[in-house]
């Protein structure tokens, strides 16, 4: 099968949906001839024109609200925010409007929109362009939250997000844009709320999101050399969360390590760990759950400091060994 990069898979999912459905359009800053801050929309304005690839002023609140209002009245907008940090500027429209309207209006009215935005550190863009704030939105009833880790997943999950009648926050990881995997040419959908077992194992379950899926897989390779069999689960969507797959895995392995890039304090890993602890998997557990997350500091500029701020492969290996009581 042909391979696509994660970035190309995002673009292909959008383009295929836009060819199928005139109601789907994209809006965002510098997404026109420039092709977006990371080049995701490159070439799209040439195919779809400036009406459906709408270059906007730098007005995150205004364009988020325009996306919500257009969704409420029959369009299916895809809003690109250049960096996920900028969601802070758009948050009223996302949290108080998009997330609430359907319920608040007694079920009358829907907001079928996708907010796509690159998150994460590792590019040297420092504290205001490197955050992972997915726990903020996952906390809000009324928002679905997606964090794909591979090109294959990104294409299928983005289609599902666009087809969804409710607002979806779709986090793309900057460092994954250039990663490749096999991606079918035809359109396909991966249901929101379906975790993927990226590697099967028997000794410990590593639940990892976004770029941490890759680091967990690397860690699992290393651990295998020491005779430790790690299962790696990628929830793919935080809301809805596929609890069943995680609980089943932990019930099997008896050990769990939860790892994400976002700051550990208040991070979504706490939610996953609690969910495991409250489930029947608790009865099978042989060790306390370990959580790995970013340190509680703004992401620094210096590349070595930046790396130290978020979990790396050796950190995951160590955490797994801790749960196995093996130094």
């Amino acid at each position, binding site marked *: 099968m042909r391979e696509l990069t994660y970035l190309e898979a995002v673009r292909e999912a959008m383009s295929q949906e836009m060819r199928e459905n005139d*109601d789907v*359009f994209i809006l965002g800053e510098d997404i026109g001839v420039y092709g977006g801050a990371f080049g995701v929309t490159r070439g799209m304005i040439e195919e779809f024109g400036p*009406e*459906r690839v*709408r270059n*906007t*002023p730098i*007005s995150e*609140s*205004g*364009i*988020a*609200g*325009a*996306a*919500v*209002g*257009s*969704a*409420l*009245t*029959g*369009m299916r*907008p895809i809003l690109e925010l250049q960096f996920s940090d900028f969601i802070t500027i758009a948050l*009223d*429209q996302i949290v*108080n*409007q998009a997330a609430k*309207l*359907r*319920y*608040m*209006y*007694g*079920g*009358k*009215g829907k907001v079928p929109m996708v907010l796509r935005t690159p998150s994460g550190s590792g590019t040297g863009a420092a504290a205001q362009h490197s955050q992972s704030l997915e726990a903020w939105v996952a906390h809000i*009833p*009324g*928002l*679905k939250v997606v964090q794909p880790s591979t090109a294959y997943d990104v294409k299928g999950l983005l289609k599902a997000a666009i087809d969804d*009648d*409710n607002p979806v926050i779709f986090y793309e990881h900057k460092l994954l844009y250039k990663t490749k995997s096999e991606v079918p040419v035809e359109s396909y959908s991966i249901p929101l709320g379906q975790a993927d077992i990226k590697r099967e194992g028997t000794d410990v379950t590593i639940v990892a999101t976004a770029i941490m899926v890759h680091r967990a897989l690397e860690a699992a390779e290393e651990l295998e050399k020491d005779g430790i069999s790690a299962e790696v689960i990628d929830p793919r969507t935080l*809301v*809805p969360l596929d609890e069943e797959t995680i609980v089943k895995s932990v019930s099997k392995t008896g050990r769990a390590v939860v790892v994400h890039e976002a700051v550990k304090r208040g991070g979504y890993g706490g939610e996953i760990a609690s969910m495991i602890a409250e489930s029947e998997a608790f009865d099978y557990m042989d060790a306390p759950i370990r959580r790995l997350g970013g340190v509680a500091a703004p992401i620094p500029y210096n590349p070595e400091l930046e790396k130290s701020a978020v979990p790396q492969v050796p950190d995951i290996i160590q955490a797994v060994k801790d749960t196995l009581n093996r130094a």
Partner: protein
Amino acid sequence: MELTKDLTLLPDISKDKLKDIYKEMWLIRYFDEKVDEFFAKGLIHGTTHLAVGQEASASGACAVLEDRDKITSTHRGHGHCIAKGADVNKMMAELFGRTTGYCKGKGGSMHIADVEKGNLGANGIVGGGIPLAVGSALTSHMKKLNYVTLCFFGDGASNEGSFHEALNLAAVWNLPVVFICENNQYGMSGSVKEMVKVPDIAARADAYGFPGVVADGNDVIEMMNVSHEAVERARNGEGPTLIEAKTYRWKGHSKSDAKKYRTREEEKEWRAKDSINRYKEVLIDATIITEDEAETIRKQAKQAIEDAVEFAKAGPMPTKEDLLTDVYA
């Protein structure tokens, strides 16, 4: 302020329609007075914001809309809903928290909406509805639906970033939206004189490259005239307009308010500009209605609100099973 009595300015407006508007203004007045009374008695809980005294801006602006047109509203939105054709029974039922209310009792005073009828909703966030209106106008433009979105907000909202972002966006995309700033002179307590440096909020439209006009917000005919012109501009693809309706809220900001931030004299001056009485005089002078007819219409409106209360009280309360309906994430 002079009355605009030149009815010839109004295009194709029938005598019946003019009478309907008169009744509608009384409906708005009586609806909010009833809500005020029930809050005081503790029969309605939560909070509410009353638009008593501001009937003309809602009725005048919405009078020129077609059914397919849309509105966005504010926390002080009962009048806008009624003017866009909402059923006062379902509105009152919503305030009573009943399943027969517009939002099945889950929205309350600040979230009454009827998306199918073009009321995209009141809004509890000051300035929150302005970008939504621009999005609605974008749909009209992209789907070539030729409807206009009328966006209500207050003087306070004109200091929100969302106002400025939305107005610029509507301008650069030349969208069919009419922004109606109901300048009722106060935020919660902050006087517009204290919070806005320019004498007219309408002047802010200049900064975005489209017309801004000041209207007497207590003159329903003037509101119809300026709104008609703005709506036609929007429908003809000539882009947005900002209308500043100068008006006054007679009641406090919310359900209880000692009104320490203004004088009783000022209130008296504005009450003398009561939009409903002024409109009645115009209609009588133009021999569109008689004093007796006007009285009959007023009584009908009053009765309709009494009926709405009965409807509301008869509606079932939601049950715990309803808590999670319409939750999807």
